[in-house]
């Protein structure tokens, strides 16, 4: 048995130079005094920084040039992402549009949709959100009830989405709706491209436990959309939404959300010489290095046109467990004054609070482990 297949691939020849370009942008722009914003930075929004990255060609990197993209390789994009994430750069605003919205439109969208949305995304100016969860459809995503009904040439949407990250800053949502009345489970679902300024849409904030506003509930009341709001094929929404899960599950954001705290732990270990802190830093570096091997191996295989879905799921489960454990273990080993402005304490305090979400977002730990079990031949 070999559960994790690794195929050899070459890192791009320009890797080192590309890293230096990204590091230079980070040095120039990420000078924000609020250290807490470096934690879990792909859920920290800074439209100015997103525009700066867009200008530098670091958003929409793999997309065709005719839509504002840069036709760089998937591994070049990987390098840019891991540099941004490890430094705690605020990449939240454009993250979903860059990772999911634009690639989905390039793959399934109409020519008009691509021209309307993708250049703005690649410029770091247009942001997206994903409408999947509903009050009664979370892990059991196939219980989606929000409905899309044909009306003349167009569609009428009704229903509710919830836990929609960044709906309040996004111009566009890609959402899963039940387009066939009476259909069950994952049949009869379709994906829709929804400009969020369409009449009938109400977005209400849900404040998270730290008092921050990341996610929302979104209500649809007789929202009228033209025929081409349907993305891809009618009734194929489930297959389309799940087709690119490997990319979503195995990216560097699945293990680097707490990396800035590892950096501070290394600083603490170097300054104090504390043996336990030093050993913990060594352990984190070993785990991070290993996860990077795994995440890159998946990226490498996807760059070859494969879909290593089981490997991607393993990366997410292991990566989330790692990034979630970091603040707990730092708290166990280091005497922290969580009321101080000491960077290690500020980051630990922030990550202790937000890390419960790491093993929930994008598929809960239990769901992922069920998928791994099925991949092993259980169930």
């Amino acid at each position, binding site marked *: 048995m070999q559960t994790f297949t690794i195929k050899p691939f070459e890192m791009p020849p320009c890797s080192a130079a590309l890293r230096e370009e990204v590091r230079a942008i980070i040095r120039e722009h990420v000078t924000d005094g609020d250290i807490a914003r470096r934690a879990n930075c792909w859920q920290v929004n800074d439209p100015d920084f997103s525009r700066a990255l867009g200008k530098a060609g670091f958003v929409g990197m793999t997309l065709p040039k005719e839509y504002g993209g840069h036709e760089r390789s998937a591994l070049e994009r990987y390098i840019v992402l891991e540099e941004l994430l490890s430094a705690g750069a605020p990449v939240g605003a454009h993250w979903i549009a860059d990772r999911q919205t634009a690639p989905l439109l390039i793959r399934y969208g109409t020519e008009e949709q691509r021209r309307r949305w993708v250049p703005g995304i690649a410029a770091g100016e247009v942001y997206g959100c994903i409408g999947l969860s509903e009050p009664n459809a979370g892990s059991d995503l196939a219980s989606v009830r929000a409905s899309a009904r044909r009306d003349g040439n167009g569609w009428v949407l009704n229903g509710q989405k919830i836990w929609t990250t960044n709906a309040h800053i996004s111009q566009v949502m890609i959402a899963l709706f039940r387009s066939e009345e009476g259909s069950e489970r994952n049949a009869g679902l379709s994906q829709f491209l929804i400009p969020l300024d369409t009449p009938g849409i109400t977005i209400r904030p849900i404040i998270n436990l730290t008092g921050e506003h990341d996610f929302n509930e979104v209500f649809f009341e007789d929202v009228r959309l033209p025929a081409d709001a349907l993305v891809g094929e009618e009734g194929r929404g489930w297959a389309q939404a799940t087709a690119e899960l490997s990319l979503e599950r195995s990216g560097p954001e699945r293990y680097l959300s707490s990396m800035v705290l590892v950096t501070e732990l290394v600083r603490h270990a170097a300054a104090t010489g504390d043996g336990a802190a*030093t050993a913990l830093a060594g352990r984190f570096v070993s785990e991070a290095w*290993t996860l990077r091997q795994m995440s890159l191996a998946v990226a490498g295989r996807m760059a070859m046109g494969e879909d290593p879905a089981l490997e991607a799921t393993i990366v997410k489960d292991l990566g989330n467990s790692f990034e979630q454990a970091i603040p707990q273990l730092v708290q166990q080993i280091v005497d922290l004054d969580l009321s101080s402005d000491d960077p290690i304490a500020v980051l630990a305090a922030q990550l202790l609070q937000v890390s419960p979400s790491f093993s929930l977002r994008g598929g809960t730990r*239990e769901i992922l482990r*069920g998928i791994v079990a099925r991949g092993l031949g259980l169930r």
Partner: protein
Amino acid sequence: MNEQQTMLADMAGGLFAELSHRATVADNWSSIEEMGFTGLLLSEADGGFGGGWVDAGIVFRLAGYHALALPVVEAIIAARLASDAGHHVEGIGTIAERTHGTLDGKRFTGMVRGVAWGRDAAFVIAPSPEGGALILSMADATIDGSSNVADEPRDVLRFTVAQATPIAADIFALGAAARSMQAAGALDAALALAVGYVNDRKQFGKPLGKLQAVQQALAVFACEAAATNSAAVGVAQALDRGDSSFEVAAAKLRANMAAGVGTAIAHQVHGAIGFTHEYDLHPLTRRLWSWRSEYGSEQFWSKALGQHVAGIGADNCWAEMVNRSDPVT
């Protein structure tokens, strides 16, 4: 894997499966020699296979997968290091984990411990008290037989003013890298046994594998096995690139962590049958427990790696992790 590596894997996998943990040097070493495994890391000019560490990693993983009770891993490493030093000795070479003693010029007096199959070897490569390593002839050794908990020979050798050839290799690091590659195989094999068992064994009217608690545990195990395999490939690639001290520490540490988690889950899902001598789980798990201690514990490598990154500074830590594998331009 390329075509040559697939052939190598088929060859090693077939033979090691047949030999398994029941092999003995007396009965079975000739089949290893016949296939030319000990020359895996020797150049073709020296009569070897001309392989690199990624190739060796494939063979080491399979040796672990089949709990092979022969010093193939050690002999491959020893042959390469001896050949690099222009030191040509007939017979099985092996490696040692620890040395206590003194080197006076090229004469070594002292004790060498953790010598894999020392009793069957012609020469041993041991860490030198002066740094680097020493090639020592078994003809000069007195042997105290000893074994690890998997019954793999780990002999203690004593030398008195014995001829020693100093070489530059870090044998402790190579041993650590090799054990992480073997652990990758052993974890995958134990996982396969566990999956097979829970799919067959019925309780409460259904296979154990239908129980979510069992599924979740085996998923955790699969993640640990996957991590160890990825780390093992990563360290092999680093050995082929050159400087590999960072990757050796990271990989052995990760393998040790996985061995702790994986062995516990493998036994838990097997229930009592996995605790019997008759059932073939223990050749794997007892090796994993042994290898977890050999060539550096979690504490040893986590301190070493932690001191390394603290030494280069927090703001260089990330770059140290990633720049190493970027192509040199």
